[in-house]
């Protein structure tokens, strides 16, 4: 839990002098140094993990493996670290048009300024997306525009220094690549792109965080973030079958692992098999598949939908993502179904086919139950569980008892990536409305494409920056509080595994009494299974409405 008590934090965010509360900074931003102290930074990557990643990818993408401390003034950077950064910048400018255009055409109109959840929660001016980008842009001008170099500060140009590097490490790890600013930018400048570039550059000189690198390297070797080995992964999942049986009285039979010839490969964020409340979402998936008799299998090799590589660099993102198609091909499945995960879907939707396709060894996804052909996934061959479930409901293939969710007053949090990097907005809502009786939307400036991040995405969901996370999550928490107070909302649903973990902490902090769940848990809970016992509790063994006694 956060170090700061909520009473103190509540006053702090609304009253303490900051750019959000109307205080006027005395110094220009270039003159304000980044100061690291416990609680405002993530711990650096462990040496052996950096070594492992370094060996597995071409080039020197992760810098020199070493032990270093963020608060010390010597980060043990390579001699020529500036050269590496500038050269890295040049390479990336040549590879990504977005980077070039976004460096050149910001007019600093300020429309993005108050769109960032980190800014709203911290009031730190460098968390305004425009200034976050200027941290990088100032160096770009100095290195890639002669006119700006001569004019220097007049044109917003400055030298790459250690101080700048520290600023980068601080503020590009206070951005969750949620893209909310990009919705409001008249030129569509996307800070996610800029943060991705900055993080790639930081990695080149070995400036990194363990919370991202360790899951990424685990994911590479064992297939999932936690490093669960195949047998553990399978046992964990099977263990949940017992819970399902206990709650519903139904013994599920069709869960298999690594089975060749299955019709569908099902890939989930691995957190769904071992951590609350994700496990309930997982139970929901399994109940659904049993209910419709889907011929599916789960892979222990590609047991991670999430892709922490996407928080480091393009190469590692591609490498980790590559398992999905590799495994689909090995098992000979017809198509892939993806579970509820945010950044997994950013990668799957916008990158996978380009990076690791063509997936010509599979078929255009077709629901074996309804016959619906998912034309929108015709090339990538991967369908989102919400698309799949919504289609089932629409065709009346599910037997649903909505009242089993009557103890839930539900709202829906659009996860950043499905919302702004995919456009998955109405499918989850359609599902919720069909499995729950009480559903209330949060205020319109906080949902759909304007949704607020949980505050802990892109590998920032680590305990050492809890205060920061609670601040960054404030806009989301505040909107939940609104419907909690107004409609008694007690369940915050979402389609993202990081959300399920981080929103839980966020709710415990800001809105005690509100729980977090995946959509599929609500579905699973409402399904009338063949041979089920009379239900008196939900998948969490919580009493159903009217069964509290």
């Amino acid at each position, binding site marked *: 839990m956060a170090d700061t008590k909520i009473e103190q934090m509540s006053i702090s*965010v609304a009253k303490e002098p900051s750019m959000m509360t109307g205080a006027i900074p005395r110094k220009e931003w270039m003159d304000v140094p980044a100061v690291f102290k416990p609680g405002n930074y993530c711990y650096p990557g462990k040496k052996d993990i950096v070594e492992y990643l370094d060996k597995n990818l071409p080039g020197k993408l992760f810098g020199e493996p070493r032990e270093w401390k963020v608060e010390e003034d010597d980060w043990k950077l390579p001699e020529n670290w500036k050269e590496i950064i500038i050269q890295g910048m040049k390479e990336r400018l040549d590879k990504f048009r977005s980077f070039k255009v976004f460096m050149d055409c910001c007019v600093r109109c300020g429309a993005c300024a108050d769109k960032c959840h980190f800014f709203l929660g911290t009031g730190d*001016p460098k968390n305004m997306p425009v200034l976050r980008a200027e941290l990088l842009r100032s160096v770009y001008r100095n290195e890639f525009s002669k006119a700006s170099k001569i004019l220097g500060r*007049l044109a917003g140009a400055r030298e790459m220094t250690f101080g700048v590097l520290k600023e980068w490490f601080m503020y590009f790890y206070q951005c969750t690549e949620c893209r909310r600013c990009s919705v409001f930018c008249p030129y569509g400048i996307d800070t996610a792109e800029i943060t991705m570039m900055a993080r790639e550059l930081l990695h080149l000189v070995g400036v990194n965080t363990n919370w991202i690198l360790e899951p990424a390297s685990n994911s590479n070797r064992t297939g999932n973030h936690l490093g669960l080995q195949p047998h553990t992964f399978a046992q964990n999942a099977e263990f949940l079958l017992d819970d399902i049986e206990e709650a519903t009285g139904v013994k599920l039979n069709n869960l298999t692992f690594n089975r060749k010839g299955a019709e569908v490969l099902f890939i989930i964020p691995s957190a769904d098999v071992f951590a609350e409340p994700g496990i309930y979402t997982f139970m929901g998936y399994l109940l659904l598949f049993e209910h419709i008799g889907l011929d599916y299998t789960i892979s222990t090799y590609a047991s991670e939908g999430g892709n922490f590589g996407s928080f480091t660099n393009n190469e590692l993102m591609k490498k980790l993502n590559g398992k999905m198609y590799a495994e689909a091909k090995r098992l000979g499945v017809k198509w892939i179904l993806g579970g509820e995960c945010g950044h997994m879907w950013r990668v799957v939707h916008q990158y996978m086919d380009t990076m690791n396709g063509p997936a010509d060894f599979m078929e255009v996804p077709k629901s074996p139950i309804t016959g619906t052909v998912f034309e*929108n*996934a015709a090339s*990538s061959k991967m369908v989102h569980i919400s698309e799949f479930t919504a289609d089932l409901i629409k065709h009346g293939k599910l037997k649903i008892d909505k009242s089993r969710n009557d103890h839930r007053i539900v709202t829906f949090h659009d996860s950043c990536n499905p919302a702004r990097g995919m456009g998955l907005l109405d499918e989850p809502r359609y599902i919720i409305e069909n499995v729950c009786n009480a559903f209330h939307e949060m205020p319109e400036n906080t949902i759909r494409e304007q949704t607020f991040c949980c505050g802990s995405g892109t590998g920032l969901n680590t305990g050492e920056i809890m205060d920061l996370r609670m601040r960054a999550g404030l806009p989301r928490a505040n909107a939940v509080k609104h419907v909690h107070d107004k409609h008694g909302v007690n369940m915050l649903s979402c389609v993202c595994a990081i959300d399920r973990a981080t929103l839980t902490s966020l709710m415990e902090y800001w809105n005690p009494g509100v729980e977090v769940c995946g959509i599929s848990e609500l579905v699973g809970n409402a399904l009338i299974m063949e041979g089920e016992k009379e239900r008196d509790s939900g998948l969490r063994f919580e009493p159903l409405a009217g069964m509290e006694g």
Partner: protein
Amino acid sequence: MKVLQALGIVLALMLLAYVGVKVPGGRTLFGVVLPYLGFAVFIIFFIVKVMDWAKSPVPFRIPTTSGQANSLPWIKQNKLDCPSTTSGVIGRMLLEVLLFRTLFKNTRAEIHEGPKLAYGTSKFLWLFGLLFHYSFLTILLRHMRLFTDPVPGFVHALEFADGFMQVGVPTLYQTDIVFLGALTFLLLRRMILPYMRYITLQSDYFPLVLLLGIGITGVLMRYVVRVDVIGIKMLSHGLVTGKPLIADSITGIFFIHLFLITVLLAYFPFSKLMHMGGVFLSPTRNLANNSRMKRHVNPWNDPSIKPHSYAGYEDDFRDFMVEAGLPVEKEPEPKPAEEDAPAEGETKSES
């Protein structure tokens, strides 16, 4: 402070032109040579910049989806904010470029005690941005009367429409007022709002002050210190036809006006003003959201980056897998190997 620097620079430029034309040869320099040069720099470096952008590929489809995607047939797609076809993208881009649709959706957040965050709509930036750009465009097109002979019909029509209130002599153009008003708003906004002042660079003030300088000298020439329009047109039209004439009747203020425009032209391709070209090339706006439907190719995709192989994975964990009843490709050897060889290109760390 930064705004004063910008003002100082613009005043110095004005003085330079004013004094410069009094020096022998100065009138030709400021009236002919520099304008030609400025215009050439503008066009050439505008193209250079855009081609430089074009040289970098768009490796991935990264549209910012701002509405419901193309999904199941019965789910209503938001075809403008989340287009999946070229025509949708064109619609999105046209509304963006012509009506600044994104700015129209702008909001303003406030934090109150509680803490409680509140969001309201905020349309002033949209309104004044739009007014500024369109009045600027109208003024530019109106100026075509000085660059064409005979003057085409659309310029006459604009002249008439812009002065339809028939106030004063010469007739007052509404766009002159709107242009200066909007510029002043945009400038004051940067100077007064604390967060705007904090993010504003000197190079944000400069173009605003420069444009104000151009606008004010233009207005002065029309309404206050009137100039010989016929003499000026002989020069401006002469510049277009390659036969520039500088009549003796042209006075200092005109050269100041012209020089500031020359500076604007030459400054344009090296500055943020290139958002004029950039807005068309933004990959978050100009791409269709169809990356699962259609395959797109990344020209620098590196096929040598492969996932950690299944074979390597199974080698690592075969015994455990067999024990747990998971299917394997290769049956374990009767006696478990002490250490499996790492797969090619892979190393193992102890788990």
